């Protein structure tokens, strides 16, 4: 089966140097792809290109074989959902209202949500264990709960691709594993193409099928987690001495500072 999303020879510059250069990347459906790399290595730029917010100067980004830039905002929102790192709700919305926001691209200008929207939102809430949160204000939720609600909103978009930008960065260990379990079920059970950008190398390596390691806007290494997560790769990209061994239970690579 072909790739849902494929980036070919992408080059993007904000003005001076290349933020991304010669980048190739593919995701199939049901695949969980982890993207790691130090700050400034081009991870956020990559997400914004897939989401059509930035248009690359070189190469092409194809979604289901069609250039991302030729989708309009609303048809793109039906294919690609983003769970962003920062979310500030200035006004108080209930969890339910936030998740229903994901139905935006499916409704006409003066249309209200109907039966089909109610089913999709119910499933999104159920899949993320958010049903009991639905009446609460988004302002009252804990970091982990809020992250789940935002994933539910992304699912309400009924996308084929979900992008997550450091979904676990402000969470404690319990919530981190909860979120990664959820993300993994989206790819492996629901069959979505999931791309997660993360600073949690161990967790990403533990859950992802494939990894991409970026350095200075270029793919430094890509492949299965144990091919990418090696002491020499990490030292070359992050510039600090590490030991990489195996998690004794899962067998996935584990990074510790030397």
């Amino acid at each position: 089966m072909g790739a849902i999303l494929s980036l070919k020879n992408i080059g993007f510059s904000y003005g001076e140097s290349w933020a991304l250069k010669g980048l190739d990347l593919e995701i199939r459906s049901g695949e969980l792809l982890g993207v790691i790399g130090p700050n400034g290595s081009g991870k956020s730029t990559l997400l914004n290109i897939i989401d059509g917010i930035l248009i690359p100067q070189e190469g092409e980004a194809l979604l289901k074989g069609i250039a991302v830039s030729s989708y309009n905002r609303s048809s793109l929102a039906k294919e690609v959902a983003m769970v962003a790192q920062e979310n500030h709700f200035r006004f108080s919305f209930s969890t339910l209202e936030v998740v229903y926001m994901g139905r935006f691209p499916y409704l006409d200008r003066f249309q209200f949500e109907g039966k089909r929207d109610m089913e999709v939102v119910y499933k999104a809430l159920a899949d993320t264990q958010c049903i009991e949160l639905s009446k609460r204000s988004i302002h009252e939720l804990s970091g982990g709960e809020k992250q789940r609600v935002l994933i539910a909103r992304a699912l309400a978009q009924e996308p084929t691709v979900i992008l997550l930008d450091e979904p676990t960065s402000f969470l404690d260990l319990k919530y981190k594993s909860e979120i990664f379990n959820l993300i993994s079920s989206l790819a492996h059970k629901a069959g979505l193409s999931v791309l997660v950008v993360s600073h949690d190398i161990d967790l990403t390596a533990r859950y992802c099928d494939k990894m991409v390691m970026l350095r200075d806007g270029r793919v430094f290494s890509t492949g299965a987690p144990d091919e990418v997560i090696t002491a020499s790769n990490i030292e070359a990209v992050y510039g600090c001495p590490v030991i990489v061994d195996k998690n004794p239970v899962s067998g996935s690579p584990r990074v510790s500072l030397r």
Partner: protein
Amino acid sequence: MTDTTIEVPLGPVRVVRISLLLCVFLALTIFISLLLGTADVTLDQLWGLFVGDPDVKETVRLIVFKIRLPRILLAGLVGFSLSLGGVVFQALLRNPLADPFILGVSSGGAFGAVLGIMFGLGFNFGIPLMSYAGALLTIFLVLEIGKKKMGMESSTILLTGVIINAFFTAIIMFFVSTAVDDRLHSMLFWLYGDLSQSNYNQSVIVFPFVFTGFVVLYGLSRHLNLITAGEETALQLGVDVKKAKLICFLTVSLVVGLVVAFSGLIGFVGLVVPHLGRMAFGSDHRLLMPVSALGGAVFLIAADTLARTVVSPSELPVGVITAFIGAPFFIYLLKTRGSKWARS
């Protein structure tokens, strides 16, 4: 709730029901305002006028239909528009302290109107058009200056609005003070928001624009919901943010600019009413917009009735009343909610 669906937070029935309830409330406010004023109009007389009783005195008929009703109608339209403008600005700037007056859009419109008067334009077409141009120019000026260094930081934009507001008010004062034309002298009173010169003609001019403006903006109510969650979020959820914002700014400037041409500077309506609406009915603009607009009409009719009765037989500009209510309210919002809104 059944097994496989979950209720919607808001349905059209609720929007219509609450809007109709507010319409009844609005009608009641209009009725009470017709009774109140320097001259006595009794309930019997007013009722007689409505059912066509020929015994009602001609003076009463004149007071009700020629003096009070046109003023009340205009107050309602102005309140409706300013409050609608407040809701939309607050959503676009993601700041609950935004309002057409605080952002300088009202005084920009007033500046346009004063220029119109100096050029000898008429109140039917030329002056409202100038007022619209002034309002539109101001909003783009405020956005442009406000964003220069800080990105789209909404408190910077608000501050820019305050400064522009002060600047335009000063220019208007300058023109008023140096003018030889009698019409400009009477404008001083109008600077504080004055509805005493109202006639039906003004409402007839304003109404179609306000109505159309409301429909256009209501069509963007879900867009505004998403924009309050952040422009990038809105983009990712499928909103054409640039287009939505442009339509909103053009429409709100039109509506606000027009009413300013006939009412002068009336502040804080767009601040107080939407906030109360949000506390009572939540943040969904599909409900908040009609609630705030109708609530704004009620609020300004009540405020104007106060303005013409508290110091009877003389009158206050209605802007004095709204400022008396609105300024402490603004401070209260800043004190109680300020910390939450300070970060962007």
